[in-house]
């Protein structure tokens, strides 16, 4: 075995000559994230998450085989940011609703989202209508979640060597499609393998997907501190003027508010250092004071939401989107892939419970108009911070608020991230 000596971010590393860089870096304690790379395969170079610089030139890390004198940059600010950007692109290109995904917690893409610290995507979500194909015999292919990494195309083959998956179309229409005939030849084990190698929840085995109970999830670490310690709050008592907080729920489910209340008795201590203004917690309907912080749950699905949000922006120094719906639309945004007309007809005109000839789409000058899409809050007004999660953990929310109000150090660690 010949060894090669090369540099990663200036540090001298050694590995077997010709070894794939992802593996070689791992042996030297450097983690290069990737979604398409799969160590048994030839490099695919499709997802581009592993982009590194080799002698100053950007290359997909999984396509590099280490050799002597290679000078590699892996964790520079530019590369870390592009890595994050590519992941964000995947999130906006597909329709990734983590809370409703069977693979959440076991999903490599979600995990990388946590790893790279994605709180919100800088890109607008595209919300393209994509199909979920349940026609295959053993599997279900959900195009909403596919990132076109091609792992399944290369790896999943029938016993007689036929491909089961392949890309079809090109450009923005590209998708990974299934050959029904070949798929029906797959054994149970082969189908399970297809599900396993899929880095997202795009390939699921019928009847198997829910068999693994929630909570037993490989990428979720247990959060140690369950109840927020109160001392850090108490120390601010009396020292500083009470800070004023406002909260609201727009197109949300009040779940984030429930989560806020999960600090239990801690809220009594909180009242000593902060005061709530407009909020469902106090039932104050209108702003009576200018606030330090506004916590917004839910995105904007109607004109009223937009009015409230704009009012919050005007009356709060710092505005925080709490939870997935506020950050990018979340579950209500599932309707974004359908025309509004279809949604309204389905719920008001053609629904099972609507009475014949009595149906009407609600419309009155006093009720808000439904928007064509559910919008993320940062598309309407400037949002200063985002707290991901569905809902975010109570401690997480209050730690962020505390940190902002009292300028305390608080960094969100990987296990605290949640998209579901």
């Amino acid at each position, binding site marked *: 075995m010949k060894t090669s000596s090369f540099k990663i971010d200036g540090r001298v590393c050694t590995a077997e000559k010709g070894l794939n860089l992802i593996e070689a870096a791992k042996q030297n304690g450097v983690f290069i994230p990737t979604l398409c790379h799969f160590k048994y395969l030839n490099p695919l*170079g*499709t997802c*581009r998450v592993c982009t590194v610089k080799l002698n100053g030139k950007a290359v997909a890390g999984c396509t590099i085989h280490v050799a002597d004198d290679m000078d590699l940059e892996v964790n520079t600010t530019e590369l870390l940011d*592009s890595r994050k950007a590519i992941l964000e692109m995947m999130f906006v290109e597909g329709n990734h609703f983590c809370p409703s995904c069977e693979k959440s917690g076991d999903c490599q893409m979600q995990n990388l989202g946590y790893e790279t610290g994605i709180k919100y995507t800088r890109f607008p979500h595209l919300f393209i209508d994509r199909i979920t194909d349940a026609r295959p015999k053993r599997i279900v292919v959900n195009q909403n979640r596919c990132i076109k990494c091609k792992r399944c195309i290369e790896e999943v083959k029938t016993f007689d060597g036929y491909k089961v998956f392949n890309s079809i179309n*090109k450009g923005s229409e590209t998708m990974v*499609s299934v050959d029904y005939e070949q798929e029906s030849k797959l054994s149970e084990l082969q189908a399970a393998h297809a599900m396993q190698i899929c880095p997202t929840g795009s390939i699921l085995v019928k009847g198997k997907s829910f068999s693994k109970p929630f909570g037993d999830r490989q990428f979720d670490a247990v959060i140690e501190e369950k109840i927020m310690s109160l001392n850090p709050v108490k120390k601010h008592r009396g020292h500083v003027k009470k800070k004023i907080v406002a909260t609201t729920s727009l197109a949300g489910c009040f779940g984030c508010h429930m989560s806020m209340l999960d600090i239990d008795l801690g809220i009594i201590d909180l009242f000593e250092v902060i005061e709530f203004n407009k909020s469902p917690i106090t039932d104050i309907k209108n702003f009576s004071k200018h606030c330090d912080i506004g916590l917004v749950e839910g995105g904007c699905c109607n*004109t009223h939401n937009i009015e409230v949000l704009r009012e919050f922006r005007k009356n709060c120094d710092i505005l925080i989107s709490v939870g997935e719906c506020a950050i990018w639309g979340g579950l209500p945004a599932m309707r974004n892939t359908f025309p509004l007309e279809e949604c309204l007809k389905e719920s008001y005109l053609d629904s099972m419970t609507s009475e014949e000839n009595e149906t009407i*789409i609600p419309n009155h000058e006093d009720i808000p108009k*439904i928007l064509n899409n559910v919008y993320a809050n940062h598309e*309407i007004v400037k949002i200063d911070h985002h707290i991901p999660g569905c809902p975010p953990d109570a401690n997480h929310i209050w730690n962020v608020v505390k940190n902002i109000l009292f300028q305390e150090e608080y960094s969100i660690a990987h296990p605290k991230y949640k998209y579901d």
Partner: protein
Amino acid sequence: MNRTGLLNKLWEFQNKFGYISESAIAQIAQKLNVSKIEIEGVVSFYHFFHKQPTGKYIIYLNNSIVSEFKGFQQIKAAFEKETGCTFGCSDVNQLFSLFETSCIGLSDQEPAALINFYPFTNLTPEKVKTIIQQLKNGNSLGFISSNPTSKIQYIPADDKTIFFRKYDMGISLKKLKNHTPDAILNLISAVKLEGCGGAFFPTAKKWKSCKESKSAKKYIICNADEGEPGTFKDKSLLNNLPGLMLEGMIVAAYVSGATNGFIYLRAEYKYLLDKIENTLREFQENNLLGNDILGIPKFNFNIQIQLGAGAYVCGEESALIESLEGKRGEARIKKYFPTEYGYLGYSTIVNNVETFAKAARIIELGTPFISTIGTNESKGTKVLSISGDVAKPGIYEIEWGMTVKELLHLCQATSPYFVQISGPSGICINNTEFDRKICKEDLICGGSIMVFNNFRSITKILENYTKFFKEESCGVCTPCRAGNQILHEKIKKIKKGICTAQDLEEIKEWGQIIKLTSRCGLGQFSANTLVMALDKFEGYFNQKIIKANENLNVEFDMEAAVYNYDSLIKDTQAP
């Protein structure tokens, strides 16, 4: 039948039945021992292959930016009116099918369309009416189609012409006998011949790498798939000097020891097929192709033509090779050069039409002559295709080093404002840069120059480009596939007039990410012009952006957001 013959097999079905049916796909899959989805993947990759039945006449109307400015919308409407069908569909009688297509290499005669691959140029609504009427009357396409020849508007004075000069068959090949392969490499490296398709890779280096390769077989591929919008210079070479290009390929074969060659001809130039085939036959008859060429023992070389099927990305050499192998035209990972691992894994030289033609001229005319022309780094001449707002669009053979200003003068550009060099994946320049010289030292150009005057909307230009890349990306890598869709959303915002300074900053940042991380040249250069235009036409964009309310900070188009609801209520409920 083997896999490499797949494209031809699919063409057979497409031509015979007008589409490639499920059963045809099943039949081919069975013959090739692959799954149906693999064949379907190939069929759906190329936009000239159809999976649904098409009409007797398939009309492809070019939607490139030059066409758009010359009346694309009116022509589109005229076709729809006259044929009675909408774009993307066929009419009830299965007589016509209408499709849009990206640049078809007729930018100097826009608006232009291909009907069953016969060219129809300088279209007007009246002309469309006549054409459709004639087709309904059963006139033959060959009879009523236009002449697609691009006018050669300019060649250098004082016998400095290299390409468009007198050509006699075999003129360069006759000199091969007196040169060893190494001597030829020296000749072409002495005049710094570089790939004229736009990448400008040193040709001698490429050929040398193939020559030194231990590959059991070697291939020469001529890339005649110029899909970059606004480019039609290879078409004029294929049309006027097909023999010269063949000679270049034969020279490359002589140097490298390759025995087989391909011309990958884009389907848009199908009307040139007969001409090239005839030239190939003449070459064979004159022992310039075949075995023991020109009496040189063991110098065997044959060329065959492969017709593309409509995919811009197949102009990228590794995607082209994949396509030749009967696969989807997806760019390979940049691990090997084609000269190391090319067609079917063998060492392969891929060069553009113009590069081969120029190589042949170098052998013919000698290096001292070529060296006196052009600049230090770019020697000789360059064939340019000029289109847009100019009085004399067409082909210009210019000496390297000519200024943009001189060129604009030659083609009689009227108040030029936005000049696109090397097509959408190239760069744009504004009127402060017209003194720049077209050469490697200053402003390199792959062959397309599109001139737009100050009445043209820059947003429209950029939207057209982004849409083009969005559709023509091979779809393999995330930044190119998703990134161009995202950029398209931003341009929509500019169009709507709700774009802020921050949006423009974001376009620049995002463009940089796409450039850094994309897999092949298509993605890497896709955002180039867009990002560049923001700086070079700052004044234009400053007028476009609005100052968002400081408190709200984001502009939101409320009217558009409630439009659907309002119109639904209006439609379903009486006032």
